Protein backbone atom coordinates (compact mmCIF):
# COMPACT_ATOMS: atom_id res chain seq x y z
CA UNK A 1 0.00 0.00 0.00
CA UNK A 2 2.83 2.39 0.85
CA UNK A 3 4.46 1.59 -2.47
CA UNK A 4 1.22 2.40 -4.31
CA UNK A 5 0.85 5.68 -2.41
CA UNK A 6 4.47 6.62 -3.14
CA UNK A 7 4.01 5.88 -6.86
CA UNK A 8 0.80 7.92 -6.94
CA UNK A 9 2.59 10.90 -5.37
CA UNK A 10 5.43 10.67 -7.90
CA UNK A 11 2.90 10.49 -10.77
CA UNK A 12 0.97 13.48 -9.42
CA UNK A 13 4.13 15.58 -9.09
CA UNK A 14 5.25 14.69 -12.63
CA UNK A 15 1.83 15.75 -13.96
CA UNK A 16 2.15 19.05 -12.15
CA UNK A 17 5.60 19.66 -13.71
CA UNK A 18 4.18 19.45 -17.27
CA UNK A 19 1.81 22.30 -16.37
CA UNK A 20 4.64 24.63 -15.29
CA UNK A 21 4.38 28.41 -15.80
CA UNK A 22 6.79 30.46 -17.94
CA UNK A 23 10.05 31.44 -16.48
CA UNK A 24 11.05 35.01 -15.65
CA UNK A 25 12.11 36.93 -18.74
CA UNK A 26 15.70 38.08 -18.56
CA UNK A 27 18.26 39.95 -20.66
CA UNK A 28 15.78 41.84 -22.85
CA UNK A 29 18.05 43.35 -25.51
CA UNK A 30 16.95 45.80 -28.17
CA UNK A 31 19.16 46.63 -31.15
CA UNK A 32 18.55 48.10 -34.59
CA UNK A 33 18.82 45.36 -37.23
CA UNK A 34 21.57 45.39 -39.80
CA UNK A 35 20.67 47.55 -42.81
CA UNK A 36 17.74 49.06 -40.96
CA UNK A 37 15.32 51.59 -42.43
CA UNK A 38 15.53 53.51 -39.15
CA UNK A 39 12.07 52.44 -38.04
CA UNK A 40 12.85 48.85 -37.04
CA UNK A 41 14.13 47.36 -33.84
CA UNK A 42 15.06 43.75 -33.10
CA UNK A 43 14.34 42.36 -29.66
CA UNK A 44 15.72 39.24 -28.02
CA UNK A 45 15.55 37.80 -24.52
CA UNK A 46 16.20 34.70 -22.46
CA UNK A 47 14.20 32.83 -19.88
CA UNK A 48 15.23 32.17 -16.30
CA UNK A 49 14.46 29.04 -14.34
CA UNK A 50 10.86 27.91 -14.80
CA UNK A 51 8.58 27.90 -11.80
CA UNK A 52 6.12 25.15 -11.00
CA UNK A 53 3.38 27.19 -9.37
CA UNK A 54 0.94 29.76 -10.67
CA UNK A 55 -1.40 29.80 -13.68
CA UNK A 56 -0.37 28.46 -17.09
CA UNK A 57 1.04 31.04 -19.52
CA UNK A 58 -0.83 31.48 -22.78
CA UNK A 59 1.72 33.74 -24.43
CA UNK A 60 3.81 36.88 -24.25
CA UNK A 61 2.87 40.45 -25.16
CA UNK A 62 5.21 43.27 -26.07
CA UNK A 63 4.71 46.74 -24.61
CA UNK A 64 6.31 49.92 -25.91
CA UNK A 65 6.55 53.56 -24.91
CA UNK A 66 8.87 56.53 -25.22
CA UNK A 67 11.21 56.81 -22.20
CA UNK A 68 9.57 60.13 -21.28
CA UNK A 69 6.06 58.65 -21.17
CA UNK A 70 4.43 56.67 -18.37
CA UNK A 71 1.73 54.73 -20.22
CA UNK A 72 2.61 51.49 -22.04
CA UNK A 73 1.17 50.67 -25.45
CA UNK A 74 0.46 47.13 -26.57
CA UNK A 75 2.24 46.40 -29.86
CA UNK A 76 2.34 43.48 -32.26
CA UNK A 77 0.58 40.16 -32.12
CA UNK A 78 0.62 37.75 -29.14
CA UNK A 79 3.85 35.72 -29.03
CA UNK A 80 4.12 32.03 -28.21
CA UNK A 81 5.29 31.36 -24.63
CA UNK A 82 8.65 29.99 -25.81
CA UNK A 83 9.47 32.84 -28.23
CA UNK A 84 12.90 34.38 -27.66
CA UNK A 85 13.04 37.03 -30.37
CA UNK A 86 10.82 39.37 -32.32
CA UNK A 87 10.95 42.67 -34.17
CA UNK A 88 8.94 45.85 -34.04
CA UNK A 89 8.31 48.78 -36.39
CA UNK A 90 8.21 52.08 -34.52
CA UNK A 91 6.30 55.20 -35.68
CA UNK A 92 9.35 57.48 -35.54
CA UNK A 93 13.10 57.34 -35.04
CA UNK A 94 14.64 57.72 -31.59
CA UNK A 95 14.97 55.77 -28.36
CA UNK A 96 12.14 53.50 -27.34
CA UNK A 97 11.45 51.56 -24.15
CA UNK A 98 10.10 48.01 -24.23
CA UNK A 99 8.78 45.53 -21.73
CA UNK A 100 7.57 41.95 -22.08
CA UNK A 101 4.71 40.60 -19.99
CA UNK A 102 3.10 37.17 -19.74
CA UNK A 103 -0.56 36.60 -20.48
CA UNK A 104 -2.17 33.65 -18.73
CA UNK A 105 -4.85 31.19 -19.77
CA UNK A 106 -7.28 32.76 -17.30
CA UNK A 107 -6.57 36.35 -18.41
CA UNK A 108 -9.75 37.83 -19.95
CA UNK A 109 -9.76 39.11 -23.54
CA UNK A 110 -9.12 42.79 -24.18
CA UNK A 111 -12.48 44.46 -23.42
CA UNK A 112 -14.16 46.47 -26.16
CA UNK A 113 -16.97 49.06 -25.92
CA UNK A 114 -20.43 48.36 -27.32
CA UNK A 115 -20.40 48.09 -31.12
CA UNK A 116 -21.40 51.18 -33.09
CA UNK A 117 -24.20 51.24 -35.65
CA UNK A 118 -23.19 51.49 -39.31
CA UNK A 119 -24.43 55.07 -39.65
CA UNK A 120 -22.59 56.39 -36.58
CA UNK A 121 -21.48 60.01 -36.71
CA UNK A 122 -17.88 61.16 -36.49
CA UNK A 123 -18.32 62.22 -32.87
CA UNK A 124 -19.72 58.81 -31.95
CA UNK A 125 -16.81 57.14 -33.74
CA UNK A 126 -14.31 59.36 -31.88
CA UNK A 127 -16.00 58.59 -28.56
CA UNK A 128 -15.92 54.87 -29.38
CA UNK A 129 -12.21 55.01 -30.21
CA UNK A 130 -11.41 56.91 -26.99
CA UNK A 131 -13.36 54.41 -24.87
CA UNK A 132 -11.67 51.48 -26.62
CA UNK A 133 -8.26 53.05 -25.92
CA UNK A 134 -9.15 53.52 -22.23
CA UNK A 135 -10.30 49.91 -21.84
CA UNK A 136 -7.17 48.70 -23.59
CA UNK A 137 -4.90 50.78 -21.32
CA UNK A 138 -6.67 49.48 -18.21
CA UNK A 139 -6.30 45.91 -19.45
CA UNK A 140 -2.61 46.43 -20.12
CA UNK A 141 -2.11 47.81 -16.61
CA UNK A 142 -3.88 44.80 -15.09
CA UNK A 143 -1.71 42.42 -17.10
CA UNK A 144 1.48 44.28 -16.10
CA UNK A 145 0.59 44.18 -12.42
CA UNK A 146 -0.25 40.50 -12.46
CA UNK A 147 2.78 39.47 -14.49
CA UNK A 148 4.99 41.58 -12.22
CA UNK A 149 3.48 40.03 -9.09
CA UNK A 150 4.12 36.51 -10.43
CA UNK A 151 7.62 37.41 -11.63
CA UNK A 152 6.89 36.47 -15.28
CA UNK A 153 7.71 39.80 -16.88
CA UNK A 154 10.90 41.46 -18.06
CA UNK A 155 12.59 44.58 -16.84
CA UNK A 156 12.21 47.63 -19.00
CA UNK A 157 14.91 47.96 -21.66
CA UNK A 158 15.59 50.68 -24.22
CA UNK A 159 16.85 50.62 -27.77
CA UNK A 160 17.68 53.35 -30.26
CA UNK A 161 16.83 53.17 -33.94
CA UNK A 162 19.57 53.58 -36.51
CA UNK A 163 18.95 54.21 -40.20
CA UNK A 164 21.37 52.86 -42.78
CA UNK A 165 22.06 54.49 -46.12
CA UNK A 166 23.41 51.31 -47.66
CA UNK A 167 22.33 47.71 -47.25
CA UNK A 168 25.64 46.02 -46.52
CA UNK A 169 24.35 42.45 -46.60
CA UNK A 170 26.70 40.44 -48.86
CA UNK A 171 23.86 39.40 -51.16
CA UNK A 172 22.78 42.99 -51.80
CA UNK A 173 26.35 44.16 -52.37
CA UNK A 174 26.93 41.30 -54.78
CA UNK A 175 23.78 42.23 -56.72
CA UNK A 176 24.95 45.85 -56.87
CA UNK A 177 28.29 44.65 -58.20
CA UNK A 178 26.48 42.49 -60.78
CA UNK A 179 24.42 45.43 -62.04
CA UNK A 180 27.54 47.60 -62.19
CA UNK A 181 29.31 44.81 -64.07
CA UNK A 182 26.52 44.55 -66.65
CA UNK A 183 26.52 48.32 -67.06
CA UNK A 184 30.31 48.47 -67.36
CA UNK A 185 30.44 45.64 -69.89
CA UNK A 186 27.69 47.35 -71.89
CA UNK A 187 29.83 50.47 -72.11
CA UNK A 188 32.91 48.48 -73.14
CA UNK A 189 31.14 46.55 -75.89
CA UNK A 190 29.29 49.67 -77.07
CA UNK A 191 32.65 51.39 -77.59
CA UNK A 192 33.94 48.35 -79.41
CA UNK A 193 30.85 48.17 -81.62
CA UNK A 194 31.11 51.88 -82.43
CA UNK A 195 34.70 51.30 -83.51
CA UNK A 196 33.42 48.80 -86.04
CA UNK A 197 33.90 45.51 -84.25
CA UNK A 198 31.35 42.90 -85.29
CA UNK A 199 29.31 41.42 -82.44
CA UNK A 200 27.91 38.00 -83.26
CA UNK A 201 24.38 37.08 -82.21
CA UNK A 202 23.12 33.60 -82.92
CA UNK A 203 20.14 33.36 -85.19
CA UNK A 204 16.80 33.23 -83.37
CA UNK A 205 14.16 31.77 -85.72
CA UNK A 206 11.27 33.28 -83.77
CA UNK A 207 12.55 36.81 -84.26
CA UNK A 208 13.29 36.24 -87.95
CA UNK A 209 9.72 35.00 -88.29
CA UNK A 210 8.34 38.39 -87.25
CA UNK A 211 9.26 40.00 -90.54
CA UNK A 212 8.11 36.91 -92.45
CA UNK A 213 4.79 37.07 -90.62
CA UNK A 214 4.34 40.75 -91.44
CA UNK A 215 5.13 39.99 -95.08
CA UNK A 216 2.55 37.20 -95.05
CA UNK A 217 -0.06 39.54 -93.62
CA UNK A 218 0.68 42.09 -96.35
CA UNK A 219 0.32 39.47 -99.09
CA UNK A 220 -2.96 38.21 -97.68
CA UNK A 221 -4.29 41.72 -97.10
CA UNK A 222 -4.93 40.97 -93.46
CA UNK A 223 -3.77 42.78 -90.34
CA UNK A 224 -1.12 41.84 -87.79
CA UNK A 225 -2.37 41.44 -84.23
CA UNK A 226 0.00 42.39 -81.40
CA UNK A 227 -0.83 41.53 -77.79
CA UNK A 228 1.55 43.07 -75.22
CA UNK A 229 0.52 40.86 -72.32
CA UNK A 230 -1.85 41.61 -69.47
CA UNK A 231 0.45 43.06 -66.85
CA UNK A 232 0.97 46.69 -65.96
CA UNK A 233 3.54 49.00 -67.51
CA UNK A 234 5.89 48.67 -64.54
CA UNK A 235 6.54 45.01 -65.36
CA UNK A 236 9.81 44.59 -67.27
CA UNK A 237 8.19 42.20 -69.75
CA UNK A 238 5.63 44.84 -70.70
CA UNK A 239 8.41 47.40 -71.12
CA UNK A 240 10.29 44.94 -73.35
CA UNK A 241 7.07 44.39 -75.30
CA UNK A 242 6.69 48.14 -75.89
CA UNK A 243 10.29 48.32 -77.14
CA UNK A 244 9.58 45.48 -79.58
CA UNK A 245 6.28 47.09 -80.64
CA UNK A 246 8.26 50.11 -81.84
CA UNK A 247 10.28 47.91 -84.21
CA UNK A 248 7.24 45.87 -85.29
CA UNK A 249 5.14 48.96 -86.04
CA UNK A 250 7.96 50.41 -88.14
CA UNK A 251 8.20 47.17 -90.16
CA UNK A 252 4.39 46.98 -90.54
CA UNK A 253 4.37 50.57 -91.77
CA UNK A 254 7.15 49.80 -94.28
CA UNK A 255 5.16 46.84 -95.58
CA UNK A 256 2.02 49.05 -95.64
CA UNK A 257 0.03 46.57 -93.67
CA UNK A 258 -2.35 47.07 -90.73
CA UNK A 259 -1.42 46.63 -87.10
CA UNK A 260 -3.97 46.00 -84.36
CA UNK A 261 -2.75 46.23 -80.77
CA UNK A 262 -5.00 44.76 -78.11
CA UNK A 263 -4.27 46.11 -74.62
CA UNK A 264 -5.44 45.00 -71.20
CA UNK A 265 -4.21 47.99 -69.18
CA UNK A 266 -5.26 51.53 -70.14
CA UNK A 267 -1.87 53.13 -69.56
CA UNK A 268 -0.24 50.42 -71.66
CA UNK A 269 -2.67 51.38 -74.41
CA UNK A 270 -1.53 55.02 -74.19
CA UNK A 271 2.15 54.09 -74.42
CA UNK A 272 1.44 51.63 -77.25
CA UNK A 273 -0.38 54.39 -79.10
CA UNK A 274 2.63 56.68 -78.92
CA UNK A 275 5.04 53.89 -79.82
CA UNK A 276 3.07 52.79 -82.88
CA UNK A 277 2.65 56.39 -84.01
CA UNK A 278 6.41 56.90 -83.76
CA UNK A 279 7.01 53.69 -85.72
CA UNK A 280 4.77 54.83 -88.57
CA UNK A 281 6.44 58.25 -88.62
CA UNK A 282 9.91 56.74 -88.67
CA UNK A 283 8.92 54.50 -91.58
CA UNK A 284 7.74 57.59 -93.50
CA UNK A 285 4.03 56.63 -93.50
CA UNK A 286 2.39 58.91 -90.92
CA UNK A 287 -0.89 58.95 -92.80
CA UNK A 288 -1.21 55.15 -92.51
CA UNK A 289 -1.34 55.35 -88.72
CA UNK A 290 -4.83 54.56 -87.39
CA UNK A 291 -5.40 55.32 -83.70
CA UNK A 292 -8.54 53.18 -83.56
CA UNK A 293 -6.39 50.10 -84.15
CA UNK A 294 -4.74 50.55 -80.76
CA UNK A 295 -7.50 49.27 -78.52
CA UNK A 296 -8.09 49.00 -74.82
CA UNK A 297 -10.31 45.93 -74.33
CA UNK A 298 -10.78 45.38 -70.60
CA UNK A 299 -8.65 45.32 -67.48
CA UNK A 300 -10.25 42.01 -66.45
CA UNK A 301 -8.22 39.00 -67.56
CA UNK A 302 -10.87 36.87 -69.24
CA UNK A 303 -12.92 39.79 -70.52
CA UNK A 304 -9.74 40.94 -72.27
CA UNK A 305 -9.19 37.40 -73.56
CA UNK A 306 -12.76 37.21 -74.90
CA UNK A 307 -12.44 40.61 -76.56
CA UNK A 308 -9.11 39.72 -78.19
CA UNK A 309 -10.55 36.41 -79.39
CA UNK A 310 -13.39 38.39 -80.92
CA UNK A 311 -10.85 40.54 -82.80
CA UNK A 312 -9.17 37.37 -84.07
CA UNK A 313 -12.39 35.79 -85.26
CA UNK A 314 -13.77 38.94 -86.87
CA UNK A 315 -10.72 40.60 -88.37
CA UNK A 316 -8.81 37.35 -89.00
CA UNK A 317 -5.25 38.60 -88.61
CA UNK A 318 -2.67 36.68 -90.62
CA UNK A 319 -0.04 36.99 -87.88
CA UNK A 320 -0.47 37.06 -84.12
CA UNK A 321 2.38 38.30 -81.96
CA UNK A 322 2.21 37.73 -78.20
CA UNK A 323 5.07 39.42 -76.33
CA UNK A 324 4.79 40.20 -72.64
CA UNK A 325 3.50 38.73 -69.43
CA UNK A 326 0.62 36.29 -69.75
CA UNK A 327 -1.32 34.09 -67.39
CA UNK A 328 -4.17 31.63 -67.84
CA UNK A 329 -5.54 33.40 -70.93
CA UNK A 330 -2.41 32.54 -72.95
CA UNK A 331 -3.67 29.19 -74.19
CA UNK A 332 -7.13 30.50 -75.02
CA UNK A 333 -5.56 33.25 -77.13
CA UNK A 334 -3.10 30.92 -78.82
CA UNK A 335 -5.67 28.22 -79.55
CA UNK A 336 -8.09 30.71 -81.08
CA UNK A 337 -5.27 31.98 -83.25
CA UNK A 338 -4.47 28.43 -84.27
CA UNK A 339 -8.08 27.81 -85.26
CA UNK A 340 -7.85 30.99 -87.32
CA UNK A 341 -4.76 29.59 -89.11
CA UNK A 342 -2.65 32.60 -88.15
CA UNK A 343 1.12 32.46 -87.84
CA UNK A 344 1.76 32.88 -84.14
CA UNK A 345 4.93 34.15 -82.50
CA UNK A 346 5.00 34.28 -78.72
CA UNK A 347 7.55 35.40 -76.18
CA UNK A 348 7.30 35.51 -72.42
CA UNK A 349 9.45 35.04 -69.35
CA UNK A 350 6.52 33.53 -67.49
CA UNK A 351 7.70 29.93 -67.11
CA UNK A 352 4.21 28.61 -66.34
CA UNK A 353 2.81 29.81 -69.67
CA UNK A 354 5.72 28.81 -71.90
CA UNK A 355 4.49 25.21 -72.35
CA UNK A 356 1.14 26.48 -73.64
CA UNK A 357 2.78 28.82 -76.10
CA UNK A 358 5.20 26.12 -77.25
CA UNK A 359 2.28 23.76 -77.85
CA UNK A 360 0.04 26.23 -79.67
CA UNK A 361 2.33 28.74 -81.41
CA UNK A 362 4.62 28.37 -84.40
CA UNK A 363 7.54 30.15 -82.72
CA UNK A 364 8.16 30.74 -79.04
CA UNK A 365 10.82 32.94 -77.51
CA UNK A 366 11.80 31.67 -74.11
CA UNK A 367 12.67 33.95 -71.22
CA UNK A 368 15.70 36.05 -72.05
CA UNK A 369 15.08 35.85 -75.80
CA UNK A 370 12.13 38.19 -75.25
CA UNK A 371 14.53 40.84 -73.92
CA UNK A 372 16.85 40.34 -76.89
CA UNK A 373 14.23 40.98 -79.58
CA UNK A 374 14.43 44.77 -79.72
CA UNK A 375 18.22 44.72 -79.97
CA UNK A 376 18.12 41.89 -82.54
CA UNK A 377 15.58 43.68 -84.75
CA UNK A 378 17.16 47.12 -84.55
CA UNK A 379 20.75 45.84 -85.12
CA UNK A 380 21.86 48.98 -83.28
CA UNK A 381 25.42 48.29 -82.04
CA UNK A 382 24.70 49.93 -78.69
CA UNK A 383 21.78 47.59 -78.07
CA UNK A 384 23.51 44.49 -79.39
CA UNK A 385 26.44 45.20 -77.05
CA UNK A 386 24.06 44.92 -74.09
CA UNK A 387 23.25 41.36 -75.18
CA UNK A 388 26.94 40.56 -75.17
CA UNK A 389 27.30 42.05 -71.69
CA UNK A 390 24.44 40.02 -70.24
CA UNK A 391 25.83 36.87 -71.91
CA UNK A 392 29.21 37.40 -70.20
CA UNK A 393 27.49 37.77 -66.83
CA UNK A 394 25.43 34.67 -67.58
CA UNK A 395 28.63 32.68 -68.08
CA UNK A 396 29.92 33.98 -64.74
CA UNK A 397 26.64 32.97 -63.06
CA UNK A 398 26.89 29.45 -64.50
CA UNK A 399 30.48 29.20 -63.26
CA UNK A 400 29.37 30.35 -59.80
CA UNK A 401 26.51 27.81 -59.85
CA UNK A 402 28.85 24.95 -60.68
CA UNK A 403 31.43 26.02 -58.11
CA UNK A 404 28.72 26.55 -55.49
CA UNK A 405 27.27 23.10 -56.17
CA UNK A 406 30.67 21.45 -55.74
CA UNK A 407 31.46 23.43 -52.58
CA UNK A 408 28.02 22.80 -51.08
CA UNK A 409 28.34 19.09 -51.76
CA UNK A 410 31.60 19.20 -49.81
CA UNK A 411 29.91 20.98 -46.92
CA UNK A 412 31.13 24.50 -47.65
CA UNK A 413 28.27 27.02 -47.82
CA UNK A 414 30.35 30.13 -48.56
CA UNK A 415 28.89 30.81 -52.01
CA UNK A 416 25.37 29.88 -50.91
CA UNK A 417 25.56 32.41 -48.06
CA UNK A 418 27.17 35.01 -50.31
CA UNK A 419 24.28 34.99 -52.78
CA UNK A 420 21.59 35.03 -50.11
CA UNK A 421 19.36 38.12 -50.19
CA UNK A 422 17.82 38.85 -46.82
CA UNK A 423 15.81 41.75 -45.43
Amino acid at each position, binding site marked *: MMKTLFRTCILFMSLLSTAATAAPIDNLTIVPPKASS*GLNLSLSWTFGEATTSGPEVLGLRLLRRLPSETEWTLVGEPLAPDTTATSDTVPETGTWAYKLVSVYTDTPEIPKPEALSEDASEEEQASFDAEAAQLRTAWVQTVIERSDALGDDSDMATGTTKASWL*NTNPGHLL*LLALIALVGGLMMVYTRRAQRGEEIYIRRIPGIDAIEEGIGRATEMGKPVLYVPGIDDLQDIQTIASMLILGQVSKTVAEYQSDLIVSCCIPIVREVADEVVKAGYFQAGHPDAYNASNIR*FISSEQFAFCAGTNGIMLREKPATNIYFGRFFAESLILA*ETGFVNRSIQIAGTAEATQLPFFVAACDYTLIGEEL*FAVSAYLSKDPRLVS*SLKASDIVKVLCVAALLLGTVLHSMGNTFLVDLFKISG
Partner: protein
Amino acid sequence: MKRTVPLLASFIIGLVMVGEFFIPHHQYRAMTNEFLEWGLILSAGAFLLGLVNLVQVNLPKVQRRDTDWQYKAIMLVALVVTLVIGFAGGTARQQPGYSYKWFFDYVFVPLNATMFALLAFYIASAAFRAFRARNLEATVLLSAAILVMIARVPIGESIPVVGDYLPQLMNWIMDVPNTAARRAIFIGAALGAIATGLRVILGLERSHLGGGES
Protein backbone atom coordinates in the same frame (compact mmCIF):
# COMPACT_ATOMS: atom_id res chain seq x y z
CA MET B 1 14.12 69.00 -75.85
CA LYS B 2 11.07 66.87 -76.57
CA ARG B 3 13.12 63.74 -76.08
CA THR B 4 15.72 65.09 -73.67
CA VAL B 5 13.29 65.77 -70.81
CA PRO B 6 11.70 62.28 -70.85
CA LEU B 7 15.15 60.68 -71.17
CA LEU B 8 16.46 62.69 -68.24
CA ALA B 9 13.37 61.85 -66.18
CA SER B 10 13.75 58.14 -67.03
CA PHE B 11 17.40 58.26 -66.00
CA ILE B 12 16.92 60.04 -62.69
CA ILE B 13 13.78 58.25 -61.55
CA GLY B 14 15.11 54.92 -62.84
CA LEU B 15 18.26 55.29 -60.74
CA VAL B 16 16.25 56.36 -57.71
CA MET B 17 13.93 53.35 -57.94
CA VAL B 18 16.83 50.92 -58.46
CA GLY B 19 18.45 52.50 -55.41
CA GLU B 20 15.42 51.62 -53.29
CA PHE B 21 16.58 48.00 -53.20
CA PHE B 22 19.99 48.99 -51.85
CA ILE B 23 19.16 51.97 -49.63
CA PRO B 24 16.98 50.98 -46.65
CA HIS B 25 16.80 54.47 -45.07
CA HIS B 26 13.19 55.36 -44.24
CA GLN B 27 13.41 58.83 -45.77
CA TYR B 28 14.56 57.34 -49.08
CA ARG B 29 11.73 54.83 -48.93
CA ALA B 30 9.27 57.65 -48.25
CA MET B 31 10.48 59.38 -51.43
CA THR B 32 10.22 56.24 -53.57
CA ASN B 33 6.77 55.48 -52.14
CA GLU B 34 5.75 58.97 -53.23
CA PHE B 35 6.92 58.21 -56.79
CA LEU B 36 4.96 54.97 -56.74
CA GLU B 37 1.85 56.89 -55.61
CA TRP B 38 2.32 59.23 -58.57
CA GLY B 39 2.49 56.21 -60.86
CA LEU B 40 -0.75 54.86 -59.37
CA ILE B 41 -2.46 58.21 -59.88
CA LEU B 42 -1.31 58.29 -63.53
CA SER B 43 -2.56 54.73 -64.03
CA ALA B 44 -5.91 55.62 -62.49
CA GLY B 45 -6.14 58.65 -64.76
CA ALA B 46 -5.41 56.41 -67.73
CA PHE B 47 -8.56 54.42 -66.92
CA LEU B 48 -10.60 57.42 -68.03
CA LEU B 49 -8.67 57.46 -71.29
CA GLY B 50 -9.32 53.72 -71.66
CA LEU B 51 -13.03 54.31 -71.17
CA VAL B 52 -13.01 57.01 -73.84
CA ASN B 53 -11.10 54.71 -76.20
CA LEU B 54 -13.62 51.89 -75.68
CA VAL B 55 -16.48 54.18 -76.63
CA GLN B 56 -14.56 55.84 -79.50
CA VAL B 57 -13.69 52.48 -81.08
CA ASN B 58 -16.96 50.63 -80.57
CA LEU B 59 -19.73 53.23 -80.87
CA PRO B 60 -19.02 54.06 -84.55
CA LYS B 61 -19.08 50.34 -85.33
CA VAL B 62 -22.53 50.05 -83.76
CA GLN B 63 -23.73 53.09 -85.69
CA ARG B 64 -22.37 51.70 -88.95
CA ARG B 65 -23.77 48.24 -88.20
CA ASP B 66 -20.38 46.60 -88.78
CA THR B 67 -19.81 42.84 -88.35
CA ASP B 68 -21.02 41.62 -84.96
CA TRP B 69 -22.20 45.13 -84.03
CA GLN B 70 -24.70 43.53 -81.65
CA TYR B 71 -21.91 42.34 -79.33
CA LYS B 72 -20.44 45.82 -79.28
CA ALA B 73 -23.85 47.24 -78.43
CA ILE B 74 -24.19 44.77 -75.55
CA MET B 75 -20.70 45.75 -74.38
CA LEU B 76 -21.54 49.46 -74.42
CA VAL B 77 -24.85 48.88 -72.60
CA ALA B 78 -23.04 46.79 -69.98
CA LEU B 79 -20.44 49.56 -69.64
CA VAL B 80 -23.10 52.19 -68.99
CA VAL B 81 -25.10 49.99 -66.61
CA THR B 82 -22.00 49.10 -64.58
CA LEU B 83 -20.99 52.76 -64.37
CA VAL B 84 -24.47 53.82 -63.24
CA ILE B 85 -24.97 51.14 -60.60
CA GLY B 86 -21.37 51.56 -59.45
CA PHE B 87 -21.79 55.28 -58.84
CA ALA B 88 -25.27 54.77 -57.38
CA GLY B 89 -23.96 52.23 -54.87
CA GLY B 90 -21.17 54.49 -53.72
CA THR B 91 -18.53 53.15 -51.35
CA ALA B 92 -20.90 50.46 -50.11
CA ARG B 93 -21.57 49.07 -53.59
CA GLN B 94 -19.82 45.77 -52.80
CA GLN B 95 -22.07 45.06 -49.81
CA PRO B 96 -24.88 42.49 -50.16
CA GLY B 97 -28.14 43.96 -51.38
CA TYR B 98 -26.60 46.38 -53.86
CA SER B 99 -27.12 45.96 -57.63
CA TYR B 100 -23.38 46.22 -58.26
CA LYS B 101 -22.77 43.26 -55.97
CA TRP B 102 -25.59 41.32 -57.65
CA PHE B 103 -24.09 41.93 -61.10
CA PHE B 104 -20.68 40.90 -59.86
CA ASP B 105 -21.90 37.67 -58.21
CA TYR B 106 -24.42 36.55 -60.82
CA VAL B 107 -23.09 37.92 -64.10
CA PHE B 108 -19.36 38.60 -63.93
CA VAL B 109 -18.24 35.66 -61.78
CA PRO B 110 -20.10 32.98 -63.81
CA LEU B 111 -18.81 34.47 -67.07
CA ASN B 112 -15.27 34.49 -65.69
CA ALA B 113 -15.62 30.90 -64.51
CA THR B 114 -16.94 29.88 -67.93
CA MET B 115 -13.90 31.31 -69.68
CA PHE B 116 -11.61 29.61 -67.19
CA ALA B 117 -13.44 26.32 -67.67
CA LEU B 118 -12.78 26.52 -71.42
CA LEU B 119 -9.11 26.09 -70.60
CA ALA B 120 -9.59 22.39 -69.91
CA PHE B 121 -10.78 21.77 -73.45
CA TYR B 122 -8.11 24.01 -74.95
CA ILE B 123 -5.42 22.13 -73.01
CA ALA B 124 -6.77 18.84 -74.34
CA SER B 125 -6.75 20.03 -77.94
CA ALA B 126 -3.28 21.61 -77.62
CA ALA B 127 -1.90 18.47 -75.96
CA PHE B 128 -3.40 16.28 -78.67
CA ARG B 129 -1.51 18.32 -81.28
CA ALA B 130 1.73 18.81 -79.37
CA PHE B 131 2.33 15.41 -77.84
CA ARG B 132 3.40 13.50 -80.93
CA ALA B 133 6.45 11.21 -80.76
CA ARG B 134 8.16 12.62 -83.87
CA ASN B 135 11.68 12.43 -82.50
CA LEU B 136 13.62 11.44 -79.38
CA GLU B 137 12.99 14.70 -77.50
CA ALA B 138 9.27 14.62 -78.29
CA THR B 139 9.09 11.00 -77.13
CA VAL B 140 10.78 11.88 -73.83
CA LEU B 141 8.37 14.79 -73.38
CA LEU B 142 5.37 12.59 -74.15
CA SER B 143 6.54 9.86 -71.76
CA ALA B 144 7.17 12.32 -68.94
CA ALA B 145 3.76 13.92 -69.49
CA ILE B 146 1.99 10.55 -69.40
CA LEU B 147 3.85 9.52 -66.24
CA VAL B 148 3.03 12.73 -64.42
CA MET B 149 -0.63 12.68 -65.49
CA ILE B 150 -1.14 9.07 -64.39
CA ALA B 151 0.73 9.59 -61.12
CA ARG B 152 -1.45 12.59 -60.23
CA VAL B 153 -4.76 10.69 -60.42
CA PRO B 154 -5.83 8.04 -57.85
CA ILE B 155 -6.00 5.33 -60.53
CA GLY B 156 -2.24 5.62 -61.00
CA GLU B 157 -1.54 4.26 -57.54
CA SER B 158 -3.81 1.30 -58.11
CA ILE B 159 -1.75 0.02 -61.05
CA PRO B 160 -0.13 -3.25 -59.92
CA VAL B 161 3.63 -3.32 -59.35
CA VAL B 162 4.49 0.20 -60.62
CA GLY B 163 1.69 2.03 -58.84
CA ASP B 164 3.71 2.41 -55.64
CA TYR B 165 6.64 3.97 -57.47
CA LEU B 166 4.72 6.35 -59.73
CA PRO B 167 4.30 9.16 -57.15
CA GLN B 168 8.03 9.05 -56.36
CA LEU B 169 8.89 9.19 -60.05
CA MET B 170 6.46 12.06 -60.58
CA ASN B 171 7.94 13.98 -57.65
CA TRP B 172 11.43 13.45 -59.03
CA ILE B 173 10.38 14.70 -62.48
CA MET B 174 8.75 17.79 -60.96
CA ASP B 175 11.46 18.49 -58.37
CA VAL B 176 14.59 17.86 -60.41
CA PRO B 177 14.50 18.38 -64.20
CA ASN B 178 11.36 20.54 -64.20
CA THR B 179 12.58 22.80 -61.38
CA ALA B 180 16.05 23.00 -62.91
CA ALA B 181 14.63 24.13 -66.25
CA ARG B 182 12.34 26.69 -64.61
CA ARG B 183 15.20 28.11 -62.58
CA ALA B 184 17.38 28.30 -65.68
CA ILE B 185 14.65 30.25 -67.49
CA PHE B 186 14.22 32.45 -64.45
CA ILE B 187 17.94 33.26 -64.14
CA GLY B 188 18.26 33.98 -67.86
CA ALA B 189 15.15 36.16 -67.81
CA ALA B 190 16.39 38.03 -64.75
CA LEU B 191 19.70 38.87 -66.43
CA GLY B 192 17.84 39.89 -69.58
CA ALA B 193 15.59 42.08 -67.47
CA ILE B 194 18.62 43.76 -65.86
CA ALA B 195 20.08 44.50 -69.30
CA THR B 196 16.74 45.80 -70.62
CA GLY B 197 16.22 47.96 -67.56
CA LEU B 198 19.71 49.42 -67.88
CA ARG B 199 19.16 50.10 -71.59
CA VAL B 200 15.98 52.04 -70.81
CA ILE B 201 17.45 53.91 -67.81
CA LEU B 202 20.64 54.86 -69.68
CA GLY B 203 18.62 56.02 -72.67
CA LEU B 204 20.03 53.49 -75.12
CA GLU B 205 16.48 52.34 -75.91
CA ARG B 206 14.22 55.16 -76.97
CA SER B 207 11.39 53.56 -78.91
CA HIS B 208 9.16 53.49 -75.81
CA LEU B 209 9.19 57.30 -75.77
CA GLY B 210 7.08 57.37 -78.90
CA GLY B 211 6.64 60.79 -80.52
CA GLY B 212 5.10 61.74 -83.81
CA GLU B 213 8.20 63.03 -85.56
CA SER B 214 10.79 61.04 -87.47
